[in-house]
Each structure stands twice: as C-alpha cells, then as structure tokens.
C-alpha cells in the first residue's frame, strides 16, 4: 500500500466564485464530501483530510539562516494554491486516480494526485 495526497487546488477566481455561492448551493457539496469521506473510511483508504483557511492566512517561517525569519503570506506567489486535501492509502496509482475522480466530483474542484515518498526500509 502507498499513500497519496489528493490536493484540491483553486485559484483566486475559484475562491471568489465559492464566496458568491449561497448556502443552498454549498450544502450539497458538503454532503457529497461527507459521503465520500465515509466511503474512504469504510474501504480502509482514509488516512487524513482537511480543509484549509484562505491563502491570506498563511505565515512563512524560514529558519534556514542564522535567524528565524517570519513573514506574512506564502513564500512563492502562485496563481493556484491548495484549499483542502485528503491523504489516502491505495495499492497503486490507478486506485488513487479512481478515488481522486470521486473526490473531484464530490468537492466540485480539480484534484492533484501526488504520491508520498515510500517509507525507508528498516
């Protein structure tokens, strides 16, 4: 079994569009994501998942130099950033892609699938 990050990425436009949505529009997405989460758990694929606060809430900490430098915002400016994610267990990429397709439908967003490094051998 390998672990994969299913990252839900969004742009400023996506965030803006979501902010415009009414509760009636958002509710079915919440429900679909819940159903998806329960399915992940029932099939033993669930490791961890979460939604993140907006990108503006990011703080960057750099302690690679002599002093710890703390700055507001992300280190690299980008057009898209991660808004939420799942970490799942899957036997191979095909299985992970199937979960990603379901997750994408459920949360109504694009999903990037990225494998974790294998754990080093003991």
């Amino acid at each position, binding site marked *: 079994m*390998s672990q994969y990050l299913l990252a839900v990425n969004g742009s400023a436009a996506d965030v803006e569009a979501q902010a415009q949505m009414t509760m009636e529009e958002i509710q079915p997405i919440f429900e679909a994501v819940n159903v998806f989460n329960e399915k992940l758990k029932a099939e033993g694929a669930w490791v961890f998942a979460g939604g993140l606060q907006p990108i503006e809430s990011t703080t960057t900490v750099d302690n690679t130099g002599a002093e710890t430098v703390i700055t507001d915002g992300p280190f690299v400016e980008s057009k898209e950033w991660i808004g939420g994610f799942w970490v799942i267990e899957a*036997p*191979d*990429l*095909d299985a992970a*892609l199937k979960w990603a397709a379901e997750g994408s439908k459920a949360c109504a967003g694009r999903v990037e699938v990225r*494998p974790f*490094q294998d754990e080093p*051998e003991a």
Partner: protein
Amino acid sequence: MSDAGAAVDRIYREEYGRVVASLVRRFGDLDLAEDAAAEALLVALERWPVDGVPPNPGGWLTTTAGNRAIDRIRRESHRDAKHQAALKMYDDTPHEPTGLVEDDRLRLIFTCCHPALAPEARVALTLRLLGGLTVAEIAQAFLVPETTMAQRITRAKRKIKDAHIPFRVPAADDLPTRLAAVLAVVYLVFNEGYLSSSADADPMREDLTAEAIRLSRILRALLPEEPEVAGLLALMLLTEARRTVRVAGGELVPLHEQDRGGWDRALIAEGHDLVRECLARALRTGQGPGQYQLLAAINAVHTDAPEASATDWSQIAALYAQLYAVAPTPIVALNRAVATAELDGPEVALAEVDRLPGIQPSLTTYHAWHATRADLLRRLGRSAEARAAYDAAIAATENSAERAYLSRRRGSLAP
C-alpha cells in the same frame, strides 16, 4: 558486424519486449529489467556465434537475464533491502484475474501508455521497452537531441516507480479508454513513419511504420477479440501496402495517380481479410465499428478498385459520414469533402471545405486543408485562387515529398 552478430541483434530486437516485460513482472523494476536484458545480450553476443543460436532464443534470453537480475539483487542486497523485498514480492506471484488474456507485454504496453504519463513519453517508452529501440534511435526518429530523449524516458520511468503506476492490464470497465490510448500511441508511431512531419527526416520512415505494425500484430495476438485492434492493424497494412509507390523521384504521388500494380498485394489481402472480420463481428455483436475500423474500411474500398476511376465513391462518402458520427473532427469532414467532390462536383465540396474553419479556426494552418482547397479550385478553373492556396499549403508543410508534389501542381496551373 559479423553475420552471427547481426543474427543475434535481430533476434534480440525481436525478443526484447518479451524479455523486459517478463523481468518487470518478476522484479517490478524497469531499470533492473533493462539492465539485465542488456547483460543477457552481451552474453548472447559472446556465446551464440561459438555455440550456435539456442533452439528457443527468447526463453534463453529471459532465463539468462533473470539470472543476471538475481545476481545483481544479491550483489546489492546488503545496501539495498528494497530489491530483496522486490524479489520476494514479485517472484511468480499470481496476478489478479482480469478476465482477459494475460501477457507480460500486454501489461507493459498499458504501463507505457498510462494516461498519467505525458503523450510524448508514452510513445518513447513504448518504443524503448516494447520495441527495443535504443534511446539514440528514438531520439533520431523524433528529431530531438539524445539527451532530451534520455531525460524524457528517465523522467517517465521515475514517475512509474514513484507514483506506483501499476504493471497490469486495466479492468474491463477501464479497458476501452485505456486501449484507445495504446492504439493512439501505435498509430502515432505509424503516422510519423508514413508522413514525417519534419523537414530534416526522410519523407518516409520505414523503420517506424514497420515497428508500429509489429506492435500492432502483438496487440492483435494478445487481444484477438478487440475490434479496434484488428481495425488499426488493417488500416496500417492497407496504408503500408501503398508505401513503395507513394513517393516517386522525391515527390509525393497521390492515391489517384499511383501505379496500382506496385501495391503490395499480400498486405492488401491481409488487410481486406481483417476488414471483413470486423464487419462480420459488428453484424454479430450489433456494436458499431470504431474509428480505426471505419478508416480501414475506407482504405479497403480504395484498394479494392483496380484503377482510380473505378473507386466506389458513394461507399466512401457513406463510410466518412459514419466516421464523422463516431469522430466528429474537422479533419474527417475535410476528407469527406474529397468524396463529395467526386460525387457532387468540386463546387459543392469547396463550399463544404470553406465552411470548416468556422468550426475549427486552426484548420487554416493545416496543410491538407489548403491542399484540398487548392485542388478543388484548380478543378473549377479558378487558377489565381488555386495558386494562392497551393502557396499556403506549401508553407504549412515541412515534408519534402509533399512540398515537391504541391509545387509541381502549382506550376501546372493554367495562367
């Protein structure tokens, strides 16, 4: 190279895909499989000229390569426990039944053509691992520097390993789309060979068309009931049959001017048999033919005509209409217009052709769109417009044989 050396090389090339695929199944590691296969070749080059070629050279190569792989794993095992784990994991483990004929090469081609890999990487990996072409040969075929091609292949292999792209024939519900990706790779290799898109390459690349046909014969043997596999093989055979008369004196010879006596009758007969088989299967199963079968059928109609004037254009137009229903692309519509010109005259066809960029504006950079227009305008006696269209067609293609043909056509226009 000595005769014996050349024979070893030929057999090795023939068996390479099978050897590598078997090692990948056993050891789950593409690099290890390739290295072991290369070592087995060195042993064969040393032994076979002396001892003679073994009765089952493929089996001999697989066994020798397998032993080399195990030696290597043992050598490295003290610092790399992973390979040892791989040895345990992959050694003759039965695979999940998928209800399909299992063959290591079939698994491998689905891995090479996985949708998670970039399309150009799929082509390169397939030619490298299944076709046994060297990185240098593949780089040459696609006219990129060898280092670029090596990087492309290394990156793809790395992704297969890191992302755990499985070595498996897809489950039945995924098979149609995944098979379509495999067939697209094979057809792309063929087309690059049949009409090279580059100015520097030969207009025809026999090595690539032959490789595509070889890959497609393997697929056909492994998936005998897949109609589109048969369709693609038929299409390529019927196209390949005309290869030798398709270019004369460095100039492209269009279908209606080709010397039909120069066509390869054996390939045509085989292609026609496959098309008939597809037709019978479609009737039996009620499943309509896909794009490769329809293209094969169109080529069957062309190759059935003893001379160009005997071509059954109404059947060709009907097949293009059917193809357009399956694959509604402007290129199909463009080809359908060629049949329209024969049936309803060039004026009707020209109106059709001129409508197409409204659907797909990028057609105006496609050489065949300009070439088709040029020919229709020529037939309508509209020389000035035809001349401009030939110029646009010449500017849009890099293929030297095609340019030569278009230039001659342009030169023969009435003033």
